[in-house]
């Protein structure tokens, strides 16, 4: 029996969506019978354990160390090393999140193994090794490659597969792992704090109203904010807008900003550069407002209004406001 080891992230609701996808992906990389082992950063709730079982995990290992209280990429990587040391390990995977990529890179660096980041497909070849597809340019380009190395390490793109429960599942065994850590490894752990958040979080917003250079200046964002509020959404921006200092970088959507997955993405005065689209291509519906009918965004949007944002947006906000007060009056 071969083994695939997966680093699984948890939050208050149990296994995070990206990790559920990574587990689904892990089950599909070989046709050989495989056991699926999960490493957790902290003890699971009963609910999380149930989720792990349903995604086909049979071996649950939990990091435990007196000196570790926060996220520690080095400690987690030591655990993965201990879990994947034997010959029967086929691969070590994690979701291609900031944490997943970081933990796997530490594992690769300390073991001298290859690490292929942000894969959308991986298949074990008959003669050994893997054929892989991975993201370049934040997903605007795909790379097909082969990896000829034992105990492959790869991170799984969050859009590679939907999370699908395993056909058959048995209750997993649970154990703890206490890694041996050097003073330096022990020192590398995060002190975490949760700032008071205000408004709708961009990464998880159902509606994102985004403005680009075509908005014209910082003042132009008042109407974008108003529209976002009317639609219960968050404000997004392009890189031009943050480099010009019109809006803060935390609002930037794209390859070097935030990746968003809303039901509706409204792109106002945004040309649709590939690096911008890399952050919003998973939107269910995209509407573009742009003066240029040939802007690249038109090849990605579902609907378009050809026009000046400074004309269309105030009219739209007025219409929605009117509609709302009419609704109240009735």
């Amino acid at each position: 029996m071969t083994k695939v080891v997966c680093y699984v992230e948890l939050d208050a609701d149990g296994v995070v969506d990206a990790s559920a996808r990574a587990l689904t992906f892990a089950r599909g990389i070989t046709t050989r019978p495989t056991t699926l082992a999960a490493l957790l950063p902290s003890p699971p709730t009963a609910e999380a354990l149930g989720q792990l079982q349903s995604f086909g995990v049979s071996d649950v290992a939990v990091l435990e160390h007196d000196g570790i209280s926060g996220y520690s990429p080095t400690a987690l990587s030591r655990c993965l090393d201990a879990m994947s040391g034997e010959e029967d390990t086929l691969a070590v995977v994690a979701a291609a999140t900031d944490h997943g990529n970081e933990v796997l890179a530490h594992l690769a660096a300390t073991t001298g193994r290859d690490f292929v980041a942000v894969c959308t497909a991986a298949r074990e070849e008959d003669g050994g090794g893997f054929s892989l597809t991975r993201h370049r340019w934040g997903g605007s380009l795909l790379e097909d490659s082969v990896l000829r190395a034992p105990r492959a390490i790869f991170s799984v793109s969050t859009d590679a597969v939907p999370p699908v429960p395993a056909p058959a599942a048995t209750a997993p065994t649970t154990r703890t792992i206490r890694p041996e850590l050097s003073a330096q490894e022990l020192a590398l752990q995060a002190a975490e704090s949760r700032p008071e958040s205000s408004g709708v979080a961009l990464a998880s917003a159902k509606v994102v109203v985004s403005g680009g250079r075509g908005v014209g200046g910082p003042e132009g964002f008042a109407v974008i904010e108003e529209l976002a509020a009317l639609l219960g959404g968050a404000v997004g921006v392009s890189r031009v807008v943050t480099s010009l200092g019109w809006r803060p970088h935390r609002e930037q959507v794209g390859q070097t900003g935030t990746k968003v997955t809303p039901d509706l993405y409204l792109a106002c005065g945004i040309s649709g550069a590939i690096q911008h689209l890399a952050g919003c291509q998973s939107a269910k519906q995209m509407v573009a407002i742009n003066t240029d009918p040939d802007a690249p965004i038109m090849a990605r949007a579902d609907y378009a209004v050809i026009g000046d944002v400074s004309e269309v947006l105030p009219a739209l906000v007025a219409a929605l406001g009117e509609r709302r007060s009419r609704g109240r009056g009735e």
Partner: protein
Amino acid sequence: MDVLVCVKRVPMVGGRIALQPDQRHIDTTLLGFTVSPHEECAVEEAVQVTEAHGGEVTVLTLGPPEAAEQLRAAVSVGAASAVLLPTEEEGLGPIATARAITSAVTRLERERSRVFDLVMFGNEAADTGDYQVGIRVAHALGRAVATGVKQLEVTAGEAVARREYRGAEELFRLPLPAVVTVKEGINLPRYPSLPGRMRAKKATIVTFVPETPDEAVEMRTLRVPTSERRSAEVLGHGKEAVPALVSLLEKMGVVS
């Protein structure tokens, strides 16, 4: 406080990516080149650290001889010296890249008989996005590393690095010397001054040829994803389109 910053030359692709007929390289005939925004910010952060604490910034790149352009750009905004590790083969993998950079760091530190207090990278390169070179170099040098850093404070002997993950702030304390990879947003990079541009033009670029080991990952082809191409349905022009837009939003269920 001496800082080494590592940057990578990449084509400035815009609305779409065109590939060469071999399906292995981007067609760059009509494109300019730049570094990733993360690395632009790494250069700016390094310059700010040395402005606050003294010392010098060295910028390093592994790439074709033309990457001297990106080194000069870094000099124009404040780097004091520049190092080029020329490679003939475009697209060295992350293991080879990390090994070449590590041996360059060791060599530079030996020549200067002083270590770099900080070695900085972008969190991931814009093109290959391997998410590992900085971490590999840190382990090879035996130094602590924080990645994806959005705020950096340096004091005597320590760097405090902050970043955000899933709505929480994470703070790492790193003893110096250390390795830090940064993300765009940590600062707003400055534009080059006129004296900066002059300095960049005259700057000498130190060159040494790196050793490059074989890789177990072999790229076969590149593909532009095609599935998402569509043609937008035009709802109308200007203000006249607003009623159609409102009914669309109603249909989508995003207005109550």
